[in-house]
């Protein structure tokens, strides 16, 4: 009755119609899940869950690994930044100290009428027997032999050797140094001489002169090297021996020569 072709066409159309009908019903959830579906779900779902969990776990590990890698990189960067900050902080502190010292020097230079050349201490005497320092200013900067050297705290010494760019300064604590000085209150005159240690001696003060510990020693200006009135030191020990004409007076210098970093060379009128 129907040709073979016709049968295939009808079959095909019927299949499409059934497919549409099933899809329509299932999309409207009008059909209850059947037993096959339930079994299939029960069988597949655990695997699905495990696989998805595994994938999630791998994903987590992967992410965590990258996080750790990036954290490690960041850590290195942060450490570098921290080191840099520490360096800057240390530099800032150093600058702050330097600023304070220079401020003191500037205030000091304003308070007196001389002109100064500021110099940095670059080296010290190779021998512990002698007390000299080397500074980074020399003949080119107007320095010459015999010029006094001071800091805000007091007298440092005087220039003994001058090179074009450097100069050597004999400190007042050196045994070869002598500063004509006065006791500030009693105006007793004497010579401040260096010893072999850090202390100095106030020499040639007569036994009759009254000098007490704690008194300040200043430069007298009579030696034609150091300007008058600069602090030299403080009396720490006075010894009077009946057989001696002079007192034995030990003074502590106002300047801490171990920590000195910058100095001012006084350009006096004679040297201009």
């Amino acid at each position, binding site marked *: 009755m129907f040709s073979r072709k016709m049968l295939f066409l009808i079959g095909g159309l019927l299949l499409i119609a059934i497919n549409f009908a099933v899809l329509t019903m299932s999309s409207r959830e009008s059909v209850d899940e059947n037993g096959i579906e339930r079994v299939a779900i029960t069988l597949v779902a655990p695997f699905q869950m495990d696989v998805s969990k595994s994938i999630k776990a791998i994903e987590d590990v992967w992410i965590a690994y990258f996080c750790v890698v990036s954290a490690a990189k960041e850590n290195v960067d942060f450490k570098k930044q921290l080191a840099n900050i520490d360096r800057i902080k240390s530099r800032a502190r150093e600058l702050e100290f330097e600023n304070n010292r220079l401020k003191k020097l500037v205030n000091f230079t304003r308070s007196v009428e001389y002109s100064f050349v500021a110099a940095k201490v670059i080296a010290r005497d190779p021998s*512990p027997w002698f007390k000299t320092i*080397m500074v980074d200013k020399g003949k080119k900067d107007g320095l010459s032999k015999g010029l006094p050297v001071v800091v805000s705290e007091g007298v440092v010494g005087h220039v003994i050797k001058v090179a074009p760019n450097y100069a050597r300064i004999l400190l007042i604590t050196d045994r*070869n140094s002598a500063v004509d000085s006065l006791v500030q209150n009693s105006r007793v005159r004497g010579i401040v001489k260096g010893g072999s240690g850090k202390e100095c001696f106030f020499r040639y003060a007569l036994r009759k002169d009254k000098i007490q510990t704690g008194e300040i020693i200043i430069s007298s200006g009579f030696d034609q090297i150091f300007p008058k009135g600069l602090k030299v030191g403080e009396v720490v020990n006075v010894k009077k021996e009946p057989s001696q004409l002079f007192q034995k007076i030990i003074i502590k210098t106002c300047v801490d020569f171990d920590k000195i970093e910058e100095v001012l060379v006084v350009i006096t009128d004679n040297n201009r």
Partner: protein
Amino acid sequence: MKISFFVILTLFLTIMQTAVFPDFFLSHHSFDLLIINIIYLSLVFTHPGVIIAVIVIGCIVDSVSGVHFGLYLTTYIWIYVIVQGLKQFVFLRNIGFYIIIAATAVVIESVFLILSVFINQGNNGVLSLNYYLMAKQMFWASVFIPLALEIITIVQKKYEVIFTNFTSKMKKKSDYT
């Protein structure tokens, strides 16, 4: 090569002594570091030209120090002469010999320094503290100079290897170009 090594060593020791060591507490006990250089030169070389190196080092230290010019120069020449004399009779790698030389060198230098102070200021200038300082310096020199001599021997050998490699490389490069 050897000259360049000793120029570098002299500069290094001078800088250490004048700019680095004074910032540390031990500077007050420190002996003259250039003595190490002088002893090493005197021990290792027999060439009479070494005396010129000793004179140059003496002049450098005299210039950077507050002492009267010639004091270190004289000291170093004496150390050189004494070591040259002593090494004729002793096995050179003997540690005891190093210790004796180190202490002797410090004594020679101290004697010259004390003599210089004595000439300038008489007996008053030479305080007991100076002898104490000399004793301390002798002790430290006896400890450190033998050690330093060993270190310098090793460093010099390494320096010679590096220097030879470097010069041969430079020579190859210049031949190539």
